[in-house]
């Protein structure tokens, strides 16, 4: 039995529309026009304990809705979901005692209270025993470098500081599963790295299952062994990062620095770009092995340096989204 089992989940929202302008507003008083939006349209997947999964998709794809259904916040219209043997929206109180959730765009800390008081409130709300709380707080404080922040009221924290505190707050009760909904949104590079390092350690050392939704492809590349791509409420692909790359096109790049500016041509590679003495070629490793291409080119041209790279994940995703939309 997987830790998280999702089968054919369906969730529809009714959105009321208001016609533009004053006349539209008046008509809205008499007759409301509503539109059904199918946020989830038959989502299925299964996760084992200890997986670190990226859950990605364009805006409005249904990522956050999935997290909210799995967190017991929203009740779906159809389908099945069992997490550690419980149905989230039916056994909400027992279920949420074992999960942690961070919504990157919101804070779960009490805005006017110092961070430490939010932590203590959560300790009482989750009934964490005093000794376990002390140990956990100490560990999280060290890992996330919270010591100077604990006595500061939340409203005075920077976004990066707040996110570190929010992460700690979601883990005080030692949940077995952690849902992260865009945890790195709006963070600077250093804060992003800190958050990523922390997630990785948490997953590796504690075996916490992590489900991560993000638009930041560096997050995915740095963290996730498995990637689920969702669009318009349906799962588009589910597999490893390498699978994803392969699915979208296996082309790789060969970047060559020549001794002097010059032309390069090969019948099994196409020139992508040229910048001074640097030429970028694209080739299909299925048709021509990188080694063969390299030895052929070095024999023919004055090559000073070269390296092979995978197309960056942003490009893969962009291509994927374009394909999905088409």
């Amino acid at each position, binding site marked *: 039995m997987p830790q998280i089992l999702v089968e054919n989940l369906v969730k529809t929202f009714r959105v009321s529309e208001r016609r533009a302008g004053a006349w539209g507003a008046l008509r809205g008083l008499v007759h409301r026009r509503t539109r059904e939006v199918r946020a989830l349209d038959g989502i299925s997947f299964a996760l084992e304990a200890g997986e670190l999964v990226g859950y990605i998709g364009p805006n409005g794809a249904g990522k*956050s809705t999935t997290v*909210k259904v799995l967190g017991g*916040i929203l009740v779906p219209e159809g389908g099945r979901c069992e997490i550690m043997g419980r149905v989230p929206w039916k056994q*909400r109180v027992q279920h*949420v005692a074992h*999960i942690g959730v961070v919504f990157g765009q*919101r804070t779960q800390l009490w805005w006017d209270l110092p961070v430490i008081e939010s932590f203590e409130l959560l300790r009482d709300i989750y*009934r964490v025993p005093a000794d376990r709380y002390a140990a956990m707080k100490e560990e999280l404080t060290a890992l996330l470098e919270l010591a100077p922040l604990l006595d500061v009221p939340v409203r005075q924290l920077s976004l990066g500081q707040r996110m570190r505190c929010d992460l700690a707050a979601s883990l005080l009760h030692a949940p077995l599963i952690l849902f992260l909904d865009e945890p790195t949104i709006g963070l600077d590079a250093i804060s992003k790295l800190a958050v990523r390092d922390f997630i990785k350690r948490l997953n590796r050392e504690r075996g916490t299952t992590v489900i991560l939704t993000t638009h930041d492809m560096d997050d995915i590349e740095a963290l996730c062994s498995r990637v689920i791509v969702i669009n318009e409420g349906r799962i588009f692909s589910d597999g490893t990062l390498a699978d994803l790359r392969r699915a979208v096109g296996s082309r790789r790049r060969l970047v060559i620095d020549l001794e002097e500016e010059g032309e390069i041509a090969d019948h099994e590679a196409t020139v992508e770009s040229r910048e001074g003495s640097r030429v970028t070629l694209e080739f299909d490793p299925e048709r021509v092995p990188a080694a063969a291409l390299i030895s052929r080119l070095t024999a023919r041209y004055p090559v000073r340096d070269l390296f092979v790279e995978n197309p960056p994940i942003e490009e893969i995703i962009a291509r994927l989204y374009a394909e999905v939309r088409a």
Partner: protein
Amino acid sequence: MKGYLATVRARFLLLLQYRAAALAGLFTQTFFGLVMVMVYGAFYRSSTAPQPMSYAQMVTYVWLGQSLFQLLPWGVDGEIAALIRGGNVAYELLRPLDLYGYWYARTMAQRTAPTLLRAAPMAAIALLFFGMRPPESLAGAAAFVAALAGALLLTCALNMIMTISMMWTLAGEGVMYFIGVVAMFCSGIILPLPLFPDWAQAALRALPFSAVYDAPFRLYIGMLPPEAVAGVLARQLAWTVALVLFGRFLLARGCRRLVVQGG
């Protein structure tokens, strides 16, 4: 239970810090109390008919109302309102607590902290300078305190209906003002209920609002004998149970139709 208590405590401590609001409230309440006593006093002087309550009882009733002004369901907890409007209600549902109980606990803090801050100074001032009388008897005082506890439970249940209604009307002010005005009028805080005509009294007594103010006040001024507290408590508890059940029903419906604002 611990989680709910911790919530009450945190909220309570935070609200106790609003000293400026308390001071401003004290000033407003003194003003309104003085105006009401003057207006009703003028009626008392101009009428020769026997009144249902003595002048001193009326004065005490008015000042009790001003002292305990904050006990009325007087607006939705701003924090919960912001949660619902901003979509942070999602985090509320992630806590291993019964949502109604959790919010009820907060409402309790919301009602008690400002009341405690304002009631004692207001009553002290009124007792010393404005002709408010102490309770008729020790038994009357005890009955009053017991009835106040019942009033607190009831006022929180009423307040919860207002809070939960925000899940339908996001702005919330509409329902808030409506219940606010009804509560003020029907509880006796504008005109003491004993001064209403007889036909209106029956209707007003049938509503829950009179059990928040009027009933405890009449125990205090001795219009009700101390032993009547049992009946008052029974009525308060019956209303509380009914309103809690109704509130729970509304909340369950609200959660089912929940659209978490802002993605």
